[in-house]
């Protein structure tokens, strides 16, 4: 944050640093005009260094390795699962999202236990796999299944893992502190590269052997003890386990402050202080909210969800959860999508006139802002009305209607200009503009500046179908 990061940080790397190590032949094989252009894209993480074919030759090996070192993220990227179904976690370049777009959104895992019936396991796996919500053109989803050994019986664990693997391709987390139980789970899916959870100060050697034997990433658990976590990471590293995840413990009640501190310290040490032992992805377990006694499971779901939201913001790369309620998972998946977007600009669409259906000279003209979410929502609502209409998308600098009006980014002037530029006056016979209810404040001014009559529409675009039916003859 202050000045330079030691490595991987975006501030300290300049295109020149990369360029100096490139072959400088301007061969264009990468598709760029010259090596400098390529170097700029590499620094901005828009293209991988391996697109430079000459650098992959034997003679350039030394420079290639130097480049790889230079470009290595502060937090190691670790993959769980195999093939197309693998999920990458970590790989973070920066601590704060304004520095650079975060990579690899927090993977959310839903748990099953080896004492659940096969039907229950399959139902939970299916619900996890089929969870989807469409939001600004993205499908928000859940990523993993965590299998917990509550029976402490290796045979039951193996069966549960098998049941899960037979019903999904989602990557799996195997949870037990007993290496014999874990191994029986691993034997059920020996090639699936599950995440092993977890090595502790007591079992690390056995866990390391399992991770090496089955080529799996390994989570390290040291509740509220970052110092021990670091020692374990060093030990396991020297033992030969390269893909680690760090779990400093998630305390959902007393100790929530410690939890947030630990995740923050780990990420700062990795991103801003070059601490490679803490430079691994982190794993949070909001599922611990279920350890609190509550009269209603609703309270546990609530607590689990809000703690999870804080860990999405504060640096967790994987979260293990128990609740599957849509009202809890929806805000979490939306938050994750928000936090992992490009921080430099609001998500905007191009301003201008859109045609919905087959409008004619009598069709309604509606107005909205160019904030992507507003635009898509309004468009969808007009379509669902089965109406043909013109939709005037005004450049509000990517803000929503209410904040655009409050922040004077959506003003009568911008609306009047948009009307003129769109040449809508040549397309329709009337001069009536339907504006969102949340822009009612500027309706008078729009009329003055544009000479159009303004109809104030509903405050939420879901009311558009009804509005058109009643107010547009």
């Amino acid at each position, binding site marked *: 944050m202050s000045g330079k990061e030691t490595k991987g940080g975006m501030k300290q790397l300049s295109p020149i640093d990369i360029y100096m190590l490139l072959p400088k032949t301007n061969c264009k094989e990468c598709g760029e005009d010259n090596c400098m252009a390529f170097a700029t894209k590499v620094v901005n993480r828009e293209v991988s260094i391996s697109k430079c074919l000459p650098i992959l030759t034997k003679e350039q090996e030394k420079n290639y390795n130097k480049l790889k070192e230079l470009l290595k993220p502060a937090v190691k990227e670790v993959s769980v699962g195999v093939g197309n179904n693998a999920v990458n976690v970590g790989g973070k370049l920066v601590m704060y999202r304004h520095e650079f777009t975060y990579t690899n959104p927090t993977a959310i895992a839903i748990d099953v236990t080896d004492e659940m019936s096969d039907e229950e396991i399959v139902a939970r796996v299916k619900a996890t796999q089929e969870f989807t919500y469409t939001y600004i053109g993205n499908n928000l989803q859940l990523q993993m299944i965590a299998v917990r050994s509550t029976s402490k019986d290796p045979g039951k664990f193996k069966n549960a893992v098998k049941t899960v693997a037979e019903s999904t391709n989602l990557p799996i987390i195997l949870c037990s502190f007993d290496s014999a139980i874990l191994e029986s789970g691993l034997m059920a899916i020996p090639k699936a590269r599950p995440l092993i959870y977890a090595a502790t100060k007591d079992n690390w050697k056995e866990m390391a052997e399992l991770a090496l034997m089955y080529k799996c990433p390994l989570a390290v658990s040291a509740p509220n003890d970052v110092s021990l976590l670091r020692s374990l990471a060093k030990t396991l590293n020297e033992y030969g386990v390269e893909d680690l995840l760090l779990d400093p*413990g998630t305390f959902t009640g007393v100790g929530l402050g410690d939890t947030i501190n630990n995740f923050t310290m780990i990420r700062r040490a990795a991103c801003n202080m070059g601490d490679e032992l803490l430079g691994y992805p982190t794993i949070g377990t909001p599922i611990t909210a279920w350890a609190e006694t509550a009269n209603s499971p609703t309270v546990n779901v609530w607590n689990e969800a809000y703690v999870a939201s804080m860990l999405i913001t504060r640096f967790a790369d994987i979260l293990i959860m128990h609740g599957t309620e849509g009202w809890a998972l929806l*805000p979490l998946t939306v938050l994750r999508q928000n936090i992992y977007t490009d921080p430099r600009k609001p998500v905007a669409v191009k301003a201008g006139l859109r045609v919905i259906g087959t409008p004619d000279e009598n069709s309604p003209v509606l107005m909205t802002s160019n904030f992507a979410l507003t635009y898509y929502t309004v468009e969808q609502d007009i379509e669902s009305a089965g109406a043909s209409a013109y939709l005037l998308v005004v450049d509000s600098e990517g803000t929503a209607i209410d904040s655009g009006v409050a922040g004077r980014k959506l003003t009568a002037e911008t609306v009047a200009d948009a009307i003129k530029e769109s040449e809508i006056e040549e397309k329709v016979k009337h001069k009536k503009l339907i504006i969102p209810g949340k822009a009612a404040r500027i309706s008078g001014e729009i009329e003055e500046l544009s000479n159009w009559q303004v109809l104030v529409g509903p405050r939420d675009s879901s009311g558009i179908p009804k509005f058109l039916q009643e107010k547009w003859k």
Partner: protein
Amino acid sequence: MPERAEKNSDLKLPPEILDLLTGSDELELEDVDIDVEELEFVYQPGVIPALQRIVTATKGKPTSLLQTPFTLPIQKYPGQIAEVTLGATKSQGGSRGKTVVIGGEKSPAFYTFENPTPNMPVISLDVFDQKVPIPKAVKTNFNDAIQDPVSWAKFAVEKFGAQMITLHLVSIDPLNPKPSTPAEAAKTVEDVLQAVDVPLVVGGCGDPEKDLAVFEKVTAAAEGERLLISTVTLDMDIEKSAKLIKKHGHVALAFSPMDLNQARELNRRLLEYLPKDQIIMDTTTAALGYGLDYAYTIMERARLAGLMGDPELQQPMSSGTTNAWAAREAWQKMDPQWGARELRGPLWETVTGLTLLLAGVDLFMMLHPAAVRTLRNTIKRLTEKRGTADIAKFANWVSSKY
């Protein structure tokens, strides 16, 4: 449960969530101990050599745990956020029973491994002076109290232990068929001041001229009460606003539209007339899913810049967290899969608030009692003494049956 709940539109929140809201017992913030040794370590860029990932092939495998020291990753900041008091007691020239203090941070939000949180962030409950569209999930918690601002404010304080009240004078809006006058608005403020003894935020309607006319009456009528005047914007007569606020002993809420340069400019202009302890800033809150990412990053950047020494961004931050309800996912009935809006809505507001809490917000203006209570609890947890985690209680999650 979700399907059933969605059919029953009068569903209320489970008692555990609501019951929690009535507790008003405040935890004492204990002093946070930090070892001197820990403080001595100050990070200097470039001094720490990058550690090498160890290649194991050439070494034997370790047989016992390799202890390695961990030094707290502490950083020093040249700047500090201003401390602002809201409300004034009788001896301080007002009539409040309680005052609140916010700001004063020397580190990013809840980096308590560096510095304790000097003042707990505060939550103010919204009250409107006329009928406004309010989500059903919220309305059910207030029953008839929302008929007028006085009973609403009393209810919020007595039933939900509100630390502050935000009185939104929406009735003054010139767009209303019959907007209330500045004198009428000032009367409402006086009535609410009579009814409750917590500090007040007084909000206008967003029309820069009408708001100023109203603030002129309100600041004088509530002389010395240290109200938070919401909001002062760049398109208002800033000199006049600031002088009113100074003359009558209040605090300015400087509102800017998600733009750090405008936030700086507004603070700079206000600082010509007002001392640092009479300005709070609001860089705009957008709802979860509707621009929260942008709101979050602007706030986080503002806070970091203030700590790094930018004198124009060292004001405590306020958030209109109620904006969370602008998200249709917060208030709309959705497919049964997405559960009851009575739960989805307050959680939407909670997540919006918690995200901004972690960006550094000091004052929250909120609507739903369950969201308020969750934030208040979380703030207590985040400011507790370090090292208090109940490890045994949470360590068994792997083998526990839930």
